[in-house]
């Protein structure tokens, strides 16, 4: 950018066609960029404010639907925050609640517990797989599994979403889960048949659940102990 400026180039006149022959003062360059930046920022903030309510509402709805599905439509649930190795019903005041990991504890109409709904995400075959699963801490069984986001290979890896038999495998499976290729299944309660041709995606799903339970298991049990 030019360091020196001439006094020419009035603010409203068009620059001569042979640009480069008239030096534009640097302050004018910065002013243009500054104004453009400010206007751009204003416009973006305006649209942001206008669209955020709808976007947040959609995300909340998706989460509600997912929790409801993996816990077999509980009548209500508590949102528990993971903090300092324990589950808390109310988030600590000195921490931003939005940044804490959340676990959901569902209740049926009669007040009995329906189970925990836990989210997890890890690398699959192509990219990160995000899922949510229902878990009964008292009987150590998985209640259901729903893949929330994945970029697995269409027709192969994405069967973790589309193959209803695979998804059904998780209902009632004991933890820790063990993935087996269907030919070698022994019928044990913790076995999950992996999808032929999509073993890596299947194993990723199983690993997500096992790893989350390894980490959160003690906290889940501790919370139940306290509550009763």
């Amino acid at each position, binding site marked *: 950018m030019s360091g020196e400026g001439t006094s020419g180039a009035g603010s409203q006149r068009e620059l001569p066609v042979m640009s480069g022959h008239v030096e534009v003062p640097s302050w004018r360059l910065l002013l243009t960029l500054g104004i453009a930046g400010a206007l751009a920022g204003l416009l973006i903030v305006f649209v*942001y404010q206008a669209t955020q309510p709808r976007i947040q509402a959609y995300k909340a709805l998706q989460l509600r639907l997912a929790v409801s599905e993996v816990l077999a439509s509980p009548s209500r649930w508590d949102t528990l925050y993971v903090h300092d190795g324990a589950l808390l019903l109310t988030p600590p005041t000195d921490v931003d609640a939005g940044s804490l990991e959340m676990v959901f504890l569902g209740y049926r109409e009669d007040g009995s517990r329906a189970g925990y709904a836990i989210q997890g995400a890890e*690398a699959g075959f*192509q990219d*990160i797989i995000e899922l949510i699963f229902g878990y009964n801490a008292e009987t150590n069984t998985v209640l259901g599994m729903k893949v929330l986001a994945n970029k697995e290979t269409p027709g192969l890896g994405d069967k973790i979403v589309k193959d209803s038999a695979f998804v059904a495998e998780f209902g009632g499976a004991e933890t820790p889960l063990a993935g087996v290729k269907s030919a070698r299944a022994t019928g044990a309660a913790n076995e999950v048949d992996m999808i032929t041709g999509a073993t*890596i995606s299947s194993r*990723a799903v199983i690993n997500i659940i096992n790893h989350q339970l390894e980490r959160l298991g003690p906290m889940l049990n501790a919370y139940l102990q306290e509550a009763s």
Partner: protein
Amino acid sequence: MSNMAWIFISAMVVNNFTLAYFLGLCPFMGVSGRVDTALKMGAANIFVLTVASVCAWFLNTFILPYAPFLRLISFIVVIASTVQITEMVIKKLSPALFRALGIYLPLITTNCAILFMAISQTNRGYNFLEGLFFAFGAGAGLTLALVLMASIREDLVFAKVPAIARGNAIVFIIAGILSLAFMGFAGLLSA
């Protein structure tokens, strides 16, 4: 540590930026006629990617939490500035290299790969080191794709390409076959 290895290998071959994500196609189609040019372009890309990764990490950690909607604008400004600065640095340190790279450097600004890398790094929540491995792997993958295409095109000059395929058509078909071959890397280093 194995996580870093997965990030690197994934970015380099399993999810190659050019052959799997279609990024960096402008230079891929335009530059890849000669191997030495391809290597230089690749090296410039690796450098810009690494610097952009560091800058993106700084922005994400310290500034953007207060204004997430300004992410795109700040990334693109940072990338453009990085390229500008890189150009000036190379010009000062090695005029020969600057002349050799010629017009390729400014073209990196519009290389979707840099922006995509910054955005992916943000979306996947990589920390500083993971971001670096990611950027490095992406750059290595870009270079690999460029060099492979360049060496094939060097030999293509001596082949009898049908008239209707000459030009970009044959290059795309070759790219398709390369992409198909790279699918064989799928699952490398996964659990």
